[in-house]
C-alpha cells in the first residue's frame, strides 16, 4: 500500500445526530470507520466495490455506498446509519412493514435496503412496482427474491400517502 493511505487526517462530523471527532487513516473507508471505530455494525461490508449495497448509509441526505466513500470525505458531513434511523423512528414504518411481510431473511442486506427504500420514499408519491424494483437495483438480496421487499415498500408508500405525510 502506498504510505499516503496511512497518513492520518482529522475529521469532525455528526453521526446519528451526535458529533464525532476522529483521526483516521486517509485510506479508511466510511463503512470501516463506522463499523470499526464507532462500533456501528448495522451497515455491512460485502462486495466492497459498490455493487451489493449492503453498506448503504445516509450522508447529507443521500443514500451512499459506505465502501466507496472515505471517512476523510465525510468531514463536516451529517451521517445517518440504521442505528440512528431506528432510534429516531425515521424508518419505523418501513421496519414494521419489513417484519410483517417477512421482507428479510438473513437480514444482512436489510439495513442497506431500508436506507435505499427510505431514499425512494422521501421523494413522495406512491411509486409503482417497477419503479421500486429499479430503485433497489443496486441492493443485492440473495434470500428473499425481492418480491416481499417490493410489497413492504409499496405498502408503506401507500400508507404514507394516505396519511398525507408523503
Amino acid at each position: 500500500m502506498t504510505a499516503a493511505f496511512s497518513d492520518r487526517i482529522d475529521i469532525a462530523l455528526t453521526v446519528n445526530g451526535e458529533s464525532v471527532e476522529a483521526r483516521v487513516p486517509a485510506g479508511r473507508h466510511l463503512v470501516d470507520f463506522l463499523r470499526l471505530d464507532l462500533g456501528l455494525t448495522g451497515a455491512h461490508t460485502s462486495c466492497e466495490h459498490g455493487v451489493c449495497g449492503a453498506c448503504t448509509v445516509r450522508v447529507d441526505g443521500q443514500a451512499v455506498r459506505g465502501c466507496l466513500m472515505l471517512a476523510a470525505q465525510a468531514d463536516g458531513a451529517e451521517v445517518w446509519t440504521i442505528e440512528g434511523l431506528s432510534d429516531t423512528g425515521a424508518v419505523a414504518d418501513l421496519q414494521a412493514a419489513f417484519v410483517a411481510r417477512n421482507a428479510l431473511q438473513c437480514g444482512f442486506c436489510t439495513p442497506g435496503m431500508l436506507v435505499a427504500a427510505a431514499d425512494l420514499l422521501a421523494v413522495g408519491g406512491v411509486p409503482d412496482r417497477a419503479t421500486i424494483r429499479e430503485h433497489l437495483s443496486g441492493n443485492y438480496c440473495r434470500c428473499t427474491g425481492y418480491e416481499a421487499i417490493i410489497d413492504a415498500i409499496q405498502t408503506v408508500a401507500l400508507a404514507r400517502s394516505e396519511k398525507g405525510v408523503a
Partner: protein
Amino acid sequence: MNSPFGNPDRPNSYIGKTVPRPNAARLVQGRGSYVDDLVLPRMVHVVFVRSPHAHARIRGIDADTALEVKGVLRVFTGADIAEVCTPWVGVLAHLKGLKSPPEHALAVDRACWVGEPVVAVVATTRAAAEDGAALVEVDYDSLPEVTDMMTALEPGTPVLHTDMGDNLAFQRLHDEGDVDAAFANAHTVIAAHFQTGRHTGVTLEPRSILVDWNPGEGQMTAWHATQAPHMIQVVLAEHLGLPESRVRVICGDVGGSYGIKVHIYPDEIATAAIAKIMARPVKFIADRLESFTTDIHARDHEIWGRIAVTEDGKILAFDIDDWTAIGAYSVYPRTSAIEGNQVVNLCGGPYDFKNYRAKTTVVFQNKTPTSQYRAVGHPIAVTVTEGLVDMAAAALGMDPVEIRRRNLFADDAYPAVSPAKMRFEGLSHHASLTKLVELMDYEALRADQAEAKSRGVVRGIGIASFIELTNPSPFMYGIGGARISAQDGCTVRMDPDGSIVAASSVTEQGQGTEAMLSQIVAEGVGVLPGQVRIITGDTQSTPYGGGTWASRGAGIGGEAALLAARALRGAILEVAGAMLQCPSGTLDIRDGAVVNMADGTDRMPLSELGRIVYFRGDTLPKGLPRELVQTRHYTPADYPFAFTNGVQASYVEVDTDTGAVKLLKHWCVEDCGRIINPQLVDEQIRGGIVQGLGAALFEELHYDAEGQLLNGSMADYLVPMAGEMPDMIIAHVETPTLESELGAKGAGEAGTAGAAAAVMNAINDALRPFGGEVMAMPFTPERVLRGLGMLKD
C-alpha cells in the same frame, strides 16, 4: 402417525399460521450479531496468500519483508500449520469408489487451484495483514493443469494426483429394466445435450470465523457462520487433536448460507489452528474475490440425455449420461460426489416409467472445489428430465401439460418406488399440476401468447415438475462414516414466570427456524408464541444435532420440538393436577394458563405453578415429579428421505433481435407436507426460485484454459437483482408425512429445484416456431441468438 392440526379453532393453534419471526425486529434495526461484528480482547486478523496458479509446485516462501510491516505478528506456511493440524480426506464409504487425496489447511508443497491458501499472515489489524500478505514472496514452478471436464480422463491429459492413477473421482451407473429394448421399440426418441453453468452461492455475508483457544481452560471456542455447528465441532476436534467436548461452536446471526456454509474450508480450519498456536482470538472474514475463488462452486454439469416415448406420449425410458468436474479435492466431509449421485437418483423422478439408465462421471480438475449448494443435483435432473419431456411433447405435437398428465405418478399410487429406487411415501403431482394450471389460467395465457405473437412479440410458457429430497435420515451421510447427525433434539423448559425456553440443535440462517420452533413449542405446551424464547447455534447449550441443510430444519428439528413441548405439557399438568387436586387428564394448558379441559375455565396461570415448583416445592407432595425441563430427539426411520413434489411455470418474453429474455411471471405449486408458517414457506419458495432464475439467465463462473477465474467480482458475475425479477405466485398442496406427529417435510430447496428448467422450457416454447432451441445455461443473449441460429461463429 400425524397429529391433527386441521381445525383452525383448536386451542393454541399456531402450527399452520403466519406468526412474525421473533428475530426479525432485531435485524431490521441493524442489531444483528454476525461474526464480523464481534471484537474480542487481544483479537488478531488473518489474511491468506493464495495461489495465483491453477497447478504449481511451491518451491519456497519468503516472508521476511512481510514480517517488517508494522502490525504483522506471524506468518504461517503449510508446513507450520501441518504441525498442529492433520489433513483430511473427503470420501464416504457408501459412495463406492470415491477417491480424493489428503487435503491440508494450507497447501504444503503443491497448489491445485487458483485461490488455494498457501500462506497465512496474522496482524493486529486486517489492513496490516493485507499489506503483509502482499509482500510475501512465494516461488512457484507451474505444473500442467487439468481444466477441461470432458478430456480429463483421456490418456493425453496429465493426472492431477499421480498416486490415484487417473482423474476419475467417482462413477456410478444405475440400470433398471431394459433400456436398450425400450429405445429400440419406441415411437419417438429424443436426444439432447444439456449444460448447467458453474456457479456459487454468493452469500451476502462472506464466510466468517473467529476462533479463540484458551489454554488455561483447554477450550476452543469458534464463532462461526455455519449451518452445522456440531459437525464443525467434530472436525475441529479431530484435526486439531482436541476432545470434542473441548470445542464449542457458536453460530449467531448468519448472513445467508444456501449450502455454502455447511462445508469444511481449509482457510477456516487454518484460522482455528493459528488460534491454537497463538492462544488468542483470530478472525478470518473472506473478501469478495476470496468468496468467488474459494466458496464451493456447484452445478457445472454436462449431460447427454435421451427419452423414449410411445405414440400417445407415454414415457418408456430415460437414458442419462452425466459428467461433472469437482475441482482438485472432494470437499470434506460431505464430499463432492453427491451432486452427480443426485442426478442419477432424481432424473425422471416425477414420472411412472419402467426403464432407466443413468451414469454419472465425476472428475478432478484444477479449479475451485465443488460441493453441495441449495437443491444439490435437483436443478440438473429437473432440467434434463423436463427438457426432454417437452421436446418429446413437441415432437408428438402434444401439449406440455397433457404429456405430464399422462406420465406423472398417480396421486393414489403411493407408496411407490421410482426406477431409480427412490421410495415415495406420498406425493401429489396431479393435484399440484391441476392447481398450477388453474392458477396461471393456462388457456388464457396461451391466448395471450398467441395475441402477443400477432403483434410480433415472442413469448413462451414453460412447465417443470419436480421431486425434492428432504428430511434425510442417516442414509445420507451417517452410513458413509461421517459424524454428521441425522438426529436433532430440543430441550424445552418452563421458568418460574411461566415463560418457555426451547434450545434446539437446528440453526437459523434467516429462513425462520426460530419462528417455526416458537410456533411449534407454543402449540405443544399451550402458551403464546411470544412467551417462547428460542436458543439455537451453540454446541454447549443446545442438544446435539445436525443443523440446517437438506431441507431438514422443520421436518426433523420441528418434530423434536413438538415432542419435547408435549412432554413438558405433560410434566406441567402432572404438577397442576396435584396442586388442584384433580386428575391431570381433566386439565389443559391454553394461552399460558392451566384450564379445565372440558370448558376452558381458568384454573391457574403458569406463573403460579412456576412459583410453587421453584420457590415453594415444600408444599407439593413429596416425591411428586416436577421436572419442568424435557428433551426429546427425532430422526427419520421409515424412509431414507421424505420426498416432496411440486411444479413450476414460467412465462417469458424473448427479444429475437437481441436475445434478451424478460421474465414476465413465475408460478410454483409445491407440497412440503404440513405447513407450519405459510408466509415463511412462501418466502422460502420465492427466494429459492430466484436462485434458480439466476442459474437460468445470469450466473456462470468463467475460467480460461489455464484455470484462471475470469469473473470473480459482483460486477462480472451476475446475480439476480430486483429490476429483472418477476412477481411469483405460490400455492401449496399439503400431503403430510405420516412418519412424524408434525407431518412436515422440507421447503427450502423446492424453488431452486425447478425454476431454471421452467425458464428453459419457456424460452424453448418461444423459440420453437423459429426452429430455435437452447440447452446450455445460463441463457444469455448470446446463447439465445445462437439457439436461433443468428450467431454461428
